[in-house]
């Protein structure tokens, strides 16, 4: 295979400059990055989460019939779906377990918080010290309206609040999240331990 060195260098230079600009703009919180992760277990922690428009309800995830992970669950697991319309997170840390190694991403630790919109997370564990305003507990999950477009099934327990503040958030997520993140002071690294 023969390459034209000049063209290869030119293409890489242009690509590299554009990529560097994207990374810089993202790290300054100017551009928002879209996340949707699944199949990989990942953890999200933050010192403080402030949200406008909060919904939470249960959902049933069904495994593939005969899945080795079934155990005694009968192939179904209950997950918590949490949705926040607009969230601000201080000292965000997100780590993805890649089999012994962790891909760790930190942001929002220099005074400017991370901003996320339409954050939807399926988790099996959420911990932290939470306070809500205007909370409705026990509302039918199909009638939730704090986050546009995100509702549960009819007859399922749900709760929603106008605002939410959670200190020392820790989430174990294993299904997915889809959200636009603004990540000031972004830093990515491969580390031996997660968040």
């Amino acid at each position, binding site marked *: 295979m023969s390459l034209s060195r000049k063209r290869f260098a030119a293409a890489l230079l242009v*690509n590299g400059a554009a*990529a560097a600009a994207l990374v810089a703009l*993202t790290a300054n919180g100017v551009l928002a990055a879209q996340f949707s*992760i699944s199949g990989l277990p990942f953890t999200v922690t933050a010192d403080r989460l402030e949200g406008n428009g909060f919904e939470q309800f249960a959902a049933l995830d069904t495994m593939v019939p005969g899945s080795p992970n079934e155990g005694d669950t009968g192939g179904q697991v209950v997950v918590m779906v949490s949705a926040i319309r607009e969230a601000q997170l201080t000292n965000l840390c997100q780590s993805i377990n890649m089999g012994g190694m962790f891909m760790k991403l930190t942001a929002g630790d220099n005074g400017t918080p991370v901003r996320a919109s339409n954050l*939807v997370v399926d988790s099996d564990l959420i911990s932290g010290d939470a306070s809500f305003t205007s909370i409705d507990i026990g509302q039918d999950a199909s009638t939730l309206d704090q986050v546009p*477009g995100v509702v549960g099934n009819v007859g399922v327990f749900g709760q929603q609040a106008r605002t939410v503040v959670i200190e020392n958030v820790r989430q174990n997520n294993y299904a*997915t999240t889809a959200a636009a993140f603004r990540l000031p002071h972004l830093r990515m690294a491969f580390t031996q331990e997660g968040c």
Partner: protein
Amino acid sequence: MAVSQPDAPTSGGAADAPTERATAGATEGATERATEGARDAPAAGTAAAESGVSAARTGVPARGGAHAAARGPGGSGAWWSAFRRWRRGRPFWGGLLVVLGGLEILAAVWAPLPVIMRVGMQGAIGYLIPVIIVLCGALIVFTPGQRILNSCIAMVLGLATWLTSNLGGFFAGMLLTLVGAAMAFAWRSSPDAK
């Protein structure tokens, strides 16, 4: 007639195996001719490849037969050299890197479809772009004549995945795609062309 000659070039409904062999033979012929043609006129790579394909079409049965024999005992060397010739006739490594990059990004965003539907197709763009990148990589390999267009599209979309798909599959997929696309962009069909 067609039954006794499964490799006949006129048989429109050629069985799968002969077609595969015929393709290998055709690309082999195309590559040789493309190299020859490129030596005569360096800019005529695409045209030479086309004529190579049409010429190979007529000469397929013999080449196909030879190939089948070469695949017999001890034929892996011949198969490998045929593959190498096929590989050298196209920006193979560049295309392969683009495909791998697209797959890596896709793997990082992989989620069951109902989950995506529930969040209002917001994450759909994160799937769409890596799929197009994989397509571009395959097209770079299988239609080398259009490598410039396909590699440019792959570059732009590779940059876009930074914003749409988990920071470009956590940077790795984006890097593979960009380097692969740059390699395909810089590829030229003849080693002695300037």
